[in-house]
Structures are given as structure tokens and as C-alpha cells.
């Protein structure tokens, strides 16, 4: 029973981590708290929904949803954030601007599509389950784990192991100095928007799969969790977000399993408050939030 709960929690946590990574990357590099990020999650889920309804297989719909959400992120960030970044506005301004924008986007989408919950086509992934040493793991869960693992690994490799990643880390720390090195910081900002939007979009598809429920406001619910994960992990800290995401997934599942399922959200926020009280720089205690 406990082992099964842990497996479910880790699977859920993997998608939280995936979602939070894009958010923390964006904050770490672009220095903006971008609440529109939750919308990229919704957008990714809908792109995958429509593509699979049109008969495309999930292996195509998932990457297409990620790319679509990334492209939307590039456009929206350019429209909303370029000015704020150029004037080096504080984090509160970006919070307020993107809060207004994202509420408008959700409401617009709900007005257009209706607020009802949509379901993915039955039989999209095998409905079977594997029995691994007495643990039940569905095919959907395996797919979620594999996709999150690949994406997280790819992000870490990109940031730590490539020339583009070097530029990203330089810009995260000192944007002006990075520009003096000849790095095209405006172009790199768009690239980072794309990567983080794509992570959010992929997260939307995977959560849509996990709960088989897609609706305009799903990004808003996820954003609250994303906030917990990112702050507990330390804003801008990639490894922190990874660990905190897994932790939140496990804690939610255990709370629902052993206490009451209605409490699972409350526990997440209780952790958030406790962490902010005791370790304002995040659970992993790095005081420098400029890590990406």
C-alpha cells in the first residue's frame, strides 16, 4: 500500500517538477514572475486534445503540443514582458501584468470553448496496467514517467552541457555582461521563453493524460502547485524545483491516501508557508536565487 502510494506520488511529482522547471528557468533567466506560464500548460493540453481528436497518435501530439505552447509563449512573452525587462521593472510589476493577462486569457478561452471538462479519446494509450513486484503501474503512468524523465534530462543537459546552456547561465547571472560578450540577449530571451513554454505544454498533456481531464482553467490550478514547487525549491533553482516537485507529488498522494483527499492542496500550501517562514531562500537553502 505505502509502496504503491509512493509510486503514484513520484509519478505525479514528476509532472509537477516538469511544469515547475520551465517556470523556474524563466524566472532564473528573465527575472520575471510570469503567471501567464499556467496558460501555456492549458494551451499544450488543448493542442494535444485537438490533434488526437483529429486522429494523430500521441507520439506526434505530445511534441506538437510542446512546440505549439512554446511558440505561444514566445509571442505572449514578447508582447507582455519585453517592455518590463527593458525598463528593469521589479518582480511585482511582472507579477501584476501577467496576473491580469492570464486571467483574461483563461476567461477568454472559457468563453470560447466553454468551461466543461474534455476527455482524451478512449484507447489513446493502452488502458492496461503492469504488475511490477506487486505494484500496479498503468501504461499512461509509465508514459508520463518516461516523458518527464526525458524532458528533465534534456533540460539539465541543455543548461549544463551545451554552448547554449552556457549563454543561458551567463545571462541568468549578469544580462548586461552577457550582452557585452556578444550574446544576443533578446534572442536568447525568446529561446528561453520557447523552452519553458514547451515544458509547460508538455506538462499539460501529461497531466491531461494522468487525470484524463482537460479544461481551460487547468493551468490555473497547476500554477498554484507550480508556485509551491518553485518557491520551496528556491526561485530559479533547477535542481531545487526537481526535488520539490517530486516531494509535493508524494506528499499530496500520501495525504489523500492516509488523511483525506480534500486536504491534499492544503498540505502543499502549509509546506509553502512553513518553508517561507523558516528558509526564505527555499528548502535547499541557497541564498543566491540566480541559479538556473
Amino acid at each position, binding site marked *: 500500500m505505502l509502496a504503491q502510494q509512493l509510486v503514484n506520488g513520484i509519478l505525479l511529482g514528476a509532472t509537477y517538477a516538469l511544469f515547475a522547471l520551465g517556470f523556474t528557468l524563466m524566472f532564473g533567466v528573465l527575472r520575471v514572475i510570469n503567471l501567464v506560464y499556467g496558460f501555456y500548460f492549458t494551451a499544450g493540453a488543448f493542442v494535444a486534445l485537438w490533434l488526437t481528436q483529429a486522429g494523430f497518435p500521441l507520439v506526434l501530439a505530445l511534441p506538437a503540443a510542446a512546440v505549439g505552447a512554446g511558440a505561444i509563449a514566445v509571442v505572449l512573452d514578447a508582447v507582455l514582458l519585453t517592455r518590463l525587462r527593458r525598463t528593469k521593472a521589479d518582480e511585482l510589476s511582472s507579477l501584476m501584468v501577467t496576473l491580469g493577462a492570464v486571467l483574461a486569457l483563461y476567461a477568454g478561452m472559457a468563453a470560447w470553448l466553454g468551461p466543461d471538462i474534455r476527455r482524451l479519446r478512449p484507447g489513446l494509450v493502452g488502458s492496461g496496467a503492469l504488475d511490477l513486484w506487486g505494484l500496479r503501474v498503468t501504461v499512461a503512468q509509465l508514459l508520463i514517467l518516461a516523458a518527464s524523465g526525458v524532458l528533465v534530462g534534456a533540460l539539465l543537459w541543455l543548461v549544463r552541457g551545451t554552448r547554449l546552456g552556457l549563454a543561458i547561465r551567463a545571462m541568468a547571472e549578469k544580462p548586461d555582461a552577457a*550582452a*557585452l560578450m556578444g550574446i544576443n540577449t533578446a534572442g536568447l530571451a525568446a529561446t528561453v521563453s520557447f523552452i519553458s513554454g514547451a515544458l509547460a505544454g508538455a506538462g499539460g498533456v501529461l497531466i491531461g493524460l494522468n487525470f484524463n481531464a482537460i479544461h481551460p482553467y487547468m493551468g490555473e490550478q497547476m500554477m498554484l502547485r507550480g508556485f509551491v514547487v518553485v518557491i520551496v525549491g528556491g526561485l530559479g533553482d533547477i535542481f531545487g524545483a526537481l526535488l520539490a516537485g517530486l516531494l509535493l507529488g508524494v506528499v499530496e498522494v500520501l495525504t489523500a491516501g492516509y488523511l483525506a483527499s480534500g486536504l491534499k492542496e492544503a498540505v502543499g500550501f502549509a509546506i509553502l508557508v512553513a518553508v517561507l517562514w523558516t528558509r526564505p531562500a527555499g528548502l535547499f537553502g541557497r541564498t543566491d536565487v540566480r541559479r538556473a
Partner: protein
Amino acid sequence: MSTLTISGLHVAYGRTEAVRGIDLTVAEGQVVTLIGANGAGKTTILRTLSGLIRPRAGQILFDGRDVAGMAPHLIAGLGIVQVPEGRQVFADLTVGENLALGAWLVRDARATQQRHETILARFPRLRERLGQPAGALSGGEQQMLAMGRALMAAPRLLLLDEPSMGLAPLVVEEIFALIAELKAAGTTILLVEQNASAALEVADVAYVLEVGRITLSGPAAQVARNPAVVAAYLGG
């Protein structure tokens, strides 16, 4: 042929005008120094030259091409390379990564490798610390790293913003020895300094900046003998 010609440059932060119409020329192979008190506008001028600030008015000709208002990475691509005020090394990145970023725009891998070797031979302390975060270096070492990082780009015009700021006297001497070496090798340099005596000694030409205006300019030796300069900047 002159490398850099600034004319009628105005730069403002909102309503406060920090640079109020300056003209300045740096000829190829020259070391030109720009001296002035705190808040005179020296950093503002260098940041504008690098494209980090858009000027309100004026021309910045580099080899006959107006670079005023161009994006920083394009200006860097023309060979205008800056060692900014306060060094601005990437503290979380290793010494090696900092040097690699200096060569960001250099396509020729062999030239980069060669320059890397030359710089490490010149600064053996950096070689010992290649894998360490730049933030762990002492202030003097960080300044050497900032210089080395700039040299990785093989600058056609090197902008130095107070390279001696906040450093111990021995390190300051080292920095000026390096500037003299670069000058001997033919590097074109615009040097901003508060350490006026050392700057005037190494420079060919000097400009004095006071609240956004050039109040005096000429051959460095001549400027160094000007009574007003002696009184205000040379502690005479």
C-alpha cells in the same frame, strides 16, 4: 585613419542628462584616457558605446560606421569589447567558462585555443583556477579574469572602465603594467579611470569629463601638467 569618433553625444536617464554633448576621438593604436570625478558620466559613455544604453542624440562612428543605438551583441561583433566597471565576471561560472564566453563570437576554434593559451601563460593564477567558480577569486584575480575574458575576443577597440577600482596598490601596478603591454602590442584602448596619475602616464591622449561635458583634452603629458588637473585629480 581614426578608429572611433564620437560627436555631439547626449545620453539621459529619464529627465536627467548624464552626458551633455561630448566629442571624443580614439585613433588606431592609441591609448586614450577619460578622467573625471564620481558621477561625471564616464560609465554612461562606455555603456553607450557598447550599446547597453541608447543615446539621446549624437554619432558614434567606428571605422566610418555609425554604431549609436545598435544592439550590444552587434557592436561586440564589430570588435568593440568592454571590461565593465566592477569587473562583472560571471561568479557562478568557472574561470574557464568565463574565458569561453569572452570568445563567444569567435568562430575560429584554433585562434581561440591559441589565445586561451596565451592568456593563461600571462596569468598563471587563472590556469591554477580554471575549474573554480570565478566568484571564489580575489578581487585582483577577478580583474585579471575580466581582462583575459575581453582579450579572448581579440578586441579592435578595448574599453576599460576603472580597471584599478578597489584593488590593492600592488595589483593596481600589475593592471597598469598590463595596459602598457597591450599598448606596446598595438591595442587601441579607451581607458576610464579615477586613478588619474597612472592613467595619464600610460595614455597618449587625455580627456577630462566634468558633469557630462569635456572640459579639457589634449596630449596626456600636457593635460597632466595643467594646473587645474593637478589641483583636482593629481592631489597637487
